[in-house]
């Protein structure tokens, strides 16, 4: 992933959004960040031909209307969007959430740590890993 490729964050908790934004700034990541607060509006964002195509999706699981796993299922069933790597960022340690996510080919499953500092540490690794990886560029 290049340093200017867009990232889509699907997260409803305002504080978690602030945390991620701040952490990205602290690790000096300059990728443009797009935020949608639930699965349905995230799908609308992806469908919209005028919005930029994200190269990486960070996904929370507990969201209203359509939760993370439902969104993931729809995403992976779509021939176009299934190619975007998805990294789950959640508080859930439930085995069944982990299993379902990996059955749906997520590219990572990360448990949000308790402190901000620990979060920054984890995000740095995640970011470095994805900077290292090749991701398909989905042209409109």
């Amino acid at each position: 992933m290049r340093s200017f490729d867009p990232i889509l964050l699907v997260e409803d908790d305002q504080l978690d959004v602030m945390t991620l934004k701040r952490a990205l700034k602290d690790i000096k990541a300059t990728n443009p960040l797009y935020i949608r607060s639930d699965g349905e509006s995230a799908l609308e964002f992806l469908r919209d031909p005028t919005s930029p195509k994200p190269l990486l999706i960070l996904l929370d699981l507990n969201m209203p209307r359509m939760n993370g796993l439902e969104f993931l299922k729809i995403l992976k069933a779509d021939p176009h969007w299934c190619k975007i790597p998805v990294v789950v960022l959640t508080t859930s340690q439930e085995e069944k959430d982990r299993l379902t996510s990996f059955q749906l080919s997520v590219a990572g499953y990360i448990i949000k740590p308790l402190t901000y500092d620990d979060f920054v540490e984890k995000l740095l690794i995640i970011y470095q890993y994805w900077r290292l990886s090749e991701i398909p560029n989905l042209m409109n």
Partner: protein
Amino acid sequence: MTANICKVLLIDDDEDDYIVARDFLDEAEQISFKLNWVDNFDDGLIEIGKNQHDVYLLDFRLGKGNGLELLEEVIANGCNKPIILLTGLGDSEIDRQAMASGASDYLVKGKFLSATLLERSIVHAIERKRSENRQLQLVAELAAVNQELKDFAYIVSHDLKAPLRGIASISDWVINDYGDRLDDEGKDMLRLMGGRVRRMSDLIDGVLQYSRVGRVKEEKMMVDLQILVQDVIDAIAPPKGLKIAIDTELPKLIAEKTRMHQLFQNLLSNAIKYIDKPDGEIHIGHSEKNGFWEFYISDTGVGIEERHFDKIFQIFQTLVPRDQSESTGVGLAIVKKIVEIYRGKIWVKSEINQGSTFYFTLPITADMIEVQP
């Protein structure tokens, strides 16, 4: 049994046995018996499968296949009604096998069998089976409740902690971003807030820990307390100058190792925490009293006022101002819970500025330790 009518099914290939049984049961005074009869293995299997009787009398000799095989098969199929095996004289090995396979009783046919004996055996078998079934049901209910509690404890700790994450982060961010615009008092307020958040998180962990005691069962094994206590002391790493002495040769007992570890660790940590002198002393020892071992852990610490003696064992009770103490007040509550699970008692003797001695008892185990559920 409805209104004292007891439905009995006899599975026996000998018609004479049927006649004898019928006559005996007719003589019964307390209960009105209704007797049915089948004379072979296959019909017996079918009829028992219908579950329409209150008790089954099963002859050992049954033509094709024997009664014992039928017994084992119907029990494997889930029969939960009492089954009484009828055997001939001298078949004691069969009797033993029958009982081991799940028969409720066995009766020896012939001149020793009487109407009274038959009636009594049936009544007792039915009573016993009912009580067995009730116990199985209770065990299943207990397992279900236990699982519910486990799930609840996880959810509670997980969901209660969620907002805490945010609060701690925000207070750090405010100090970072607006620190130059805050005076010392302002910064102090935020630090206090951060401290309370950490305390809340510790309290939730404490509740979770407390709820696990008694719920999470471990295999019991022979624990050598002499070694265990030494391990605990090494793990705690007491400060220099503090003397810890084990006065007696601590016994071995059968217990859950983790619980014993937790027990001694909490008491020792407590003792160390409340020693205010640089050359404090802690003594550990035991004696035998009335089938119990009585252990003591004494310290030369600050001591406890008599009026607090009961309070300290309650969860979340600490005797020092909240902001000064890191203690969540769960340690002694856990110790008390563990001791009581092992049917022991715990109490304290103390004098202000002299020190305290915690006493607790644990039963001396011969081969099995009985634990209260």
